[in-house]
């Protein structure tokens, strides 16, 4: 057996920098910006709309159509090396006029840096943004969840379908502000729709086509699936 992997240390690109300390008295606005913000400005010019430092974290607002290039540069460039994607999420504000923001939290483990990228999706148009799955595999389920909760389509995602709610969920996108807390339908109707799924239909058509096993199912099960019966996924 091999010796195992070589250990990669966070902060390896920082050389002899002192060990990090707990931040104290972080200001509301202002403070030192992440050097990547300046580098981004230099590299991408006006694709970077705004840079703000809020409670110690640098927020970079970018144009939605340039997101993939920017993230790819941040990942590949040797002076940035943002190799870790913490989170992909979206924020919808209570103000109906305000655009929905898609937020990426990136970390550079070699440089020990944290960056927050934001792209504002304009209201009135269908919600679409590039998927960063081709750069970070960890974005797979995070983007699926964002789609499930907000309805934002991630262009380039290999398998964008609902993940937390079942695929035939008809009430809408739960985390939108126009979606009421208790859902749109009455409780009995929600139960009816939930119970309409037959867990013994077992596999969705998609899974069966993956396994190329549809022909091998018992006739009764095939009839059920062809009749549109859903597994509750």
């Amino acid at each position, binding site marked *: 057996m091999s010796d195992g992997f070589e250990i990669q240390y966070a902060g390896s690109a920082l050389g002899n920098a002192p060990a990090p300390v707990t931040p104290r008295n972080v200001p509301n606005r202002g403070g030192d910006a992440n050097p990547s913000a300046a580098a981004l400005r230099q590299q991408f010019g006006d694709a970077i709309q705004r840079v703000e430092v809020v409670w110690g974290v640098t927020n970079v607002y970018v144009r939605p159509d340039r997101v993939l290039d920017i993230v790819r540069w941040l990942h590949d460039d040797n002076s940035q090396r943002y190799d870790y994607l913490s989170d992909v999420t979206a924020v919808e504000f*209570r103000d109906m006029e305000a655009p929905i923001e898609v937020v990426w939290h990136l970390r550079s483990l070699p440089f020990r840096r944290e960056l927050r990228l934001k792209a504002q999706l304009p209201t009135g148009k269908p919600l679409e943004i590039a998927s960063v799955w081709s750069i970070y595999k960890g974005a797979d389920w995070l983007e699926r969840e964002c789609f499930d909760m907000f309805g934002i389509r991630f262009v380039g995602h290999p398998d964008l379908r609902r993940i937390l*709610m*079942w695929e035939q969920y008809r*009430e809408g996108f*739960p985390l939108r502000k126009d*979606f*009421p*807390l*208790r*859902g749109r339908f*009455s*409780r*009995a*109707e*929600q*139960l*009816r*729709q*939930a*119970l*309409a*799924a*037959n*867990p*013994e239909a077992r596999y969705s058509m998609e899974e069966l086509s993956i396994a190329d096993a549809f022909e091998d199912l018992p006739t009764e099960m095939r009839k059920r699936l062809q009749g549109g019966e859903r597994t*509750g996924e």
Partner: protein
Amino acid sequence: MGLTPRPEHRVVEYNPTSQEGWVATRLDFLVNWGRANSLWPMPFGTACCAIEFMATAASRFDLARFGMERMSFSPRQADVLICAGRVPFKLAPVIRRIWQQMPQPKWAIAMGACASSGNIFDNYAVVQGIDTIIPVDVYVPGCPPRPEGLMYGIMLLQEKVKRERMNDKTIRSEMEPDPNSKLYIPAPVIDELSEPFGNSVHQTRSGL
């Protein structure tokens, strides 16, 4: 079953012409004693209550002294379904199917506030009490209930089991859901049971 009113148990029905005699009473006692003291649980554990259930089964609180240490994860071999944890709508057909797969005699314990009524999750995703989906015998409140609380609920279930009579034909009947809507109880009753009450009515305001 859990929702039909049971006759008052302190009232003894005496029917002079009935054929139920000494043998039938002893048989009842034996069967119920056997059932009550060896209830094999089907732990339908979803969330935090499942951890407290595990703690109840572990050394300090020990469910083995109730005859319940044999957790049967197959519903076909279980007596009592202990729903420990919150049940979202996506999980509803699963718990319904597991309940239907359990053979009679079977009982259900709703462990915790989430299984009993939905608890703090009064929102689009959570079933407001599993008694809207399956018939429940004992509700154990708490979030999560202490192991002693769960054991008290189990003891109450044992009392309930011991009160069953074999010549009561309605007690072990399988409740069939309405074929169209798949609901056991009428829709308006479900809506009424699931209505928010108390403080949660006011908490739908955001802002302020």
